């Protein structure tokens, strides 16, 4: 925001990786729902207050499709979360089908069963960190590269049935589809990503395994309206969402714990006892993309006195809602002791993140294991030296150098 007359344009600047942009609070003081311009320059409503964010997440009059997609506000020139998706007439039905298809694979019992495997994969990543440290004693270890990125990728690969050896390929595709001004290259990467998933689906069709891509192929055999393109898009979406988001939370969680030695020591002294609430607080406070989650009004709706017209774009900022003083005392304080801690990191309502349990299981495994292995770990650089990615849909940081 430069002047009060100009419509503010997303994304807003923030002081460091752990802060959120002060502009959110400035807007929220004026109204729960504000007029903004998207990074692409189109008009949208930005929701910054907790109550209204929750209300809109749960309101069926908002969806991801648009009544006239060619007229819809664009959010960015990435290839995901960039504009409308799905068919206006069938969105709800399609969404229900998707949830029904995927719910068993992401259920809490499956996550509990996966727990031991996640523990093993975590140990493997921690061994790699130790080896890197021993090979070059005194030099920082990049936790992003050796833990925050590979662990969620290993896990989502197992769950979906994607070869881990392909990681450099789909990491490159994941990065390119999510560049906010990616344009033609982002679209080309999405096409390539879908081709890759189609190839995997063909392999599962010939040789089904106990994994989500095989489940989708089986659903498709019974329901031909679930097209190859639908399957490829969903597979790419799950692979992207399954690693970028959790990776960000691991990196940011480490930053939250290491920027205050007392906080680190408290956690390291009793990781098992502290972990659940610490994870919820990391989820609440981690600031991500800078645009929020996208919805379009499917009819005229009044929210907190603001009239939102059919077809208008609405960006729900979970980052801002999770720091709303009306919902959280001292919202900018990292306080694992807060209870209950009802944040919107996974959204809420019918579209709530299907991977929430997976993310929680990974996060509840990784932090105790990490601080049991390296209780004296510390940041090797200042917080100001941790660059925040501003041009990426999922946000995040490029590197977290640590030592011990």
């Amino acid at each position, binding site marked *: 925001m430069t002047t009060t007359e100009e419509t503010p344009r997303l994304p807003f600047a923030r002081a460091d990786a752990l802060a959120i942009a002060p502009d959110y609070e400035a807007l929220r003081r004026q109204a729960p729902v504000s007029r903004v311009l998207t990074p692409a320059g189109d008009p949208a409503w930005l929701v910054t207050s907790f109550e209204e964010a929750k209300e809109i*997440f*749960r309101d069926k009059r908002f969806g991801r499709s648009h009544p006239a997609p060619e007229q819809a506000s664009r959010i960015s020139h990435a290839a995901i979360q960039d504009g409308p998706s799905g068919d206006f007439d069938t969105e709800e039905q399609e969404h229900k089908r998707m*949830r*029904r298809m995927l*719910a*068993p694979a*992401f*259920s*809490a*019992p499956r*996550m*509990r069963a996966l727990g031991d495997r996640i523990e093993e994969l975590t140990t493997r990543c921690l061994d790699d960190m130790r080896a890197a440290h021993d090979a070059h004693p005194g030099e920082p270890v990049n936790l992003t590269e050796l833990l925050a990125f590979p662990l969620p990728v290993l896990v989502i690969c197992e769950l979906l049935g994607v070869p881990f050896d392909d990681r450099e390929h789909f990491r490159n595709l994941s990065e390119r589809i999510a560049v906010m001004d990616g344009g033609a290259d982002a679209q080309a990467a999405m096409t390539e990503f879908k081709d890759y998933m189609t190839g995997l689906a063909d392999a599962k069709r010939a040789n089904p395994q106990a994994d989500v891509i095989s489940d989708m192929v089986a659903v498709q055999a019974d329901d031909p309206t679930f097209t190859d393109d639908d399957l490829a898009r969903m597979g790419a979406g799950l692979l992207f969402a399954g690693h970028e988001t959790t990776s960000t939370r691991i990196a940011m969680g480490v930053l939250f714990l290491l920027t205050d030695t007392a906080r680190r020591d408290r956690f390291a002294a009793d990781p098992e006892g502290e972990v659940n609430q610490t994870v919820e607080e990391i989820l609440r406070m981690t600031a991500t993309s800078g645009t929020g989650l996208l919805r379009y009004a499917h009819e005229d709706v009044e929210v907190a006195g603001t009239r939102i017209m059919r077809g208008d774009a609405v960006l729900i900022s979970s980052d801002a809602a999770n720091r709303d003083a009306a919902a959280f005392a001292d919202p900018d304080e990292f306080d694992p002791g807060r*209870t*209950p*801690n*009802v944040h919107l990191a*996974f*959204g*809420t*309502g*019918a579209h*709530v993140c*299907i991977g*929430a*349990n997976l993310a*929680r*299981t990974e996060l509840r495994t990784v932090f105790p294991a990490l601080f049991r292995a390296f209780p004296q770990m510390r940041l090797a650089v200042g917080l100001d030296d941790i660059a925040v990615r501003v041009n990426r849909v999922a946000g995040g940081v490029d590197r977290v150098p640590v030592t011990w």
Partner: protein
Amino acid sequence: MKISVDTGKCVSSGQCVLLAPETFDQNEDDGTVVLLADEPPAGERDAARQAELTCPAAAIRLAEA
């Protein structure tokens, strides 16, 4: 503390199960909520309250007995 669930509203997020595994479970077929106990065990009262508050579909109700 009495609990009731509305499986018709449930969106199978399973957040309640991870929060309070002795109080809630999920149906293997469609992921909808299964109530294991009418009352949360003593150690899960706060967790059950958190499950009610965080349920994405508002499908869980707790009433003080």
